[in-house]
């Protein structure tokens, strides 16, 4: 890994990093990868994974007691809003 990798990852994860932070992260990430890459050498037979779970679906209708969240609390916490709508800088 090198600094450019950290910069690319920062772009993907929407993080602004200082040069110092990038250096630190490079060091830390390499250290952690050093620890976890032990699994590369682990021999795992091709296990047939048997999932006991299955996907659970429901009808797309409001159930009793829904919505269980407070619309007012959500809207009141918009960092910026106008007429009850969430406001951000222009996207297009």
């Amino acid at each position, binding site marked *: 890994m090198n600094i450019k990798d950290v910069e690319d990852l920062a772009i993907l994860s929407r*993080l602004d*990093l200082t040069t110092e932070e990038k250096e630190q992260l490079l060091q830390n990430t390499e250290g952690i990868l050093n620890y976890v890459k032990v699994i590369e050498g682990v021999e795992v037979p091709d296990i047939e994974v048997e999932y006991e779970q299955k996907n659970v679906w429901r009808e797309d209708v409001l159930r009793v007691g829904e919505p269980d969240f407070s*619309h007012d609390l959500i809207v009141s916490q918009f960092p910026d809003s106008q007429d009850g709508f969430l406001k951000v800088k222009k996207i297009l």
Partner: protein
Amino acid sequence: MIDLKNLTIEKAHEAMRKGEYTSKDLTEAYLAVISEKDKELHAYLEIYSDVLTQAEKADDKFKDGTATLLTGIPFGIKDNILIEGQIASAASKILENHIASYDATVIKELKGAGAVFLGRTNMDEFAMGSSTEYSAFGPSKNPYDITRVPGGTSGGSTAAVAADMALVALGTETCGSVREPAAFCGVVGLKPTYGSVSRHGVVAMGNSLDQVSPVAKTVREVEIIFDALSKHDENDATSVIEQNRTPKKSNIGKKVGVPWHLFEEELNPEIMENFKSSVEKLKNDGYEIVDIKLPYSKYSLAVYYIIMPAEVSTNLSRFDGARYGLRIEGETVTDMFNKSRSSGFGQETRRRIILGTYILSHGYYDAYYNKAWKVRHAIIKEMNEAFKSIDFIMTPTAPFLPFKLGEKMDDPVAMYLCDLFNAPANLTGTPSIAVPSGFSKEGLPFSVQFTAPHFCEGNLFDIGKKFEIIR
């Protein structure tokens, strides 16, 4: 004067039922200890302003005869569990003033019973850490030695219970985050079977791992809380339906498997001595101790530190400054995302996001993420196999005694190793309980950990209670 030190849920319930004192009296007793000790211990980030009103409502239930075991019981609630109208910040600056817009299912259950929420307990930011030192609002301290950590990430919850600042508490586990601090603070912590307790309304860290976990001084109390919270929840797609909650192994006996090979070499000698003597005591009480080998399990922590950051990088992408929490404006929307996240997330959080993004990126996905899942399945299979011939797996809960504040802050991997023995249960989804087992010569708590097959919490409570008597 209520004897908080030796109080239990059942004792408190009896006393309140008989009218010896009210929930309001009990709550005030805890508030008094909090005002005396919490400035130093910093177990709480906030004490709720409506605590006494909650207690009064509980007292009404005693008056009209509808009180149950958890009515009027003062709880500490970890800062990543949502209570409508209260701040839930997951100990992060990005959510510092975020007010929950709904109740977590576990909160709804406890509210229904009339439990009292004292306040939100401190934690490592976004539940990442092993010491509560990664909290954006300062670390909590170990009540047994304030120069040492209480463990993490549920360190606030365990410190509160240990210091009589709550009768019981809720924490969460993704990898050892209740068992390890329970060990460090000399209290009991249970990580339930994955899918047994609802995750709805709990700030997500690792969806395939997270579980709400009760904390108390005794196994019986943890059992009471688990029984109240263990039910299917339609709002949690990973919640197991009632008909699938049969114990994976019926006829659990008294065979305890100890994977000595996993910790023989590196363990702190004092912990090893205490562990060996704990094992002896069980043996003398009629438990058969079996040496077992779990070769894949030694890769548990490495597997965890690949799968978890991947899940974290996805889960934390929702925190972008747009709809709630900290927003730092930029020239563009993307700029706003970048600035808000960079200001709002602490160092460890950023570390794990970067790591997770790397693991999931093209070219590494297969080598790391896919391989980690293959090894995870091998660990699951291995544990299921082991449980065919033994009934419990027993290990020390943590490889070290509570360490000094700051001691492991420079080396992330050193910090990660705290959860070495906890990881298998999180990866496999099996229930696991940490029970105090004595004190070191410096007065620091020892702890042992029992793991059982899926949905065998009842058996964990049995062996836990037995161990509490004979330790």
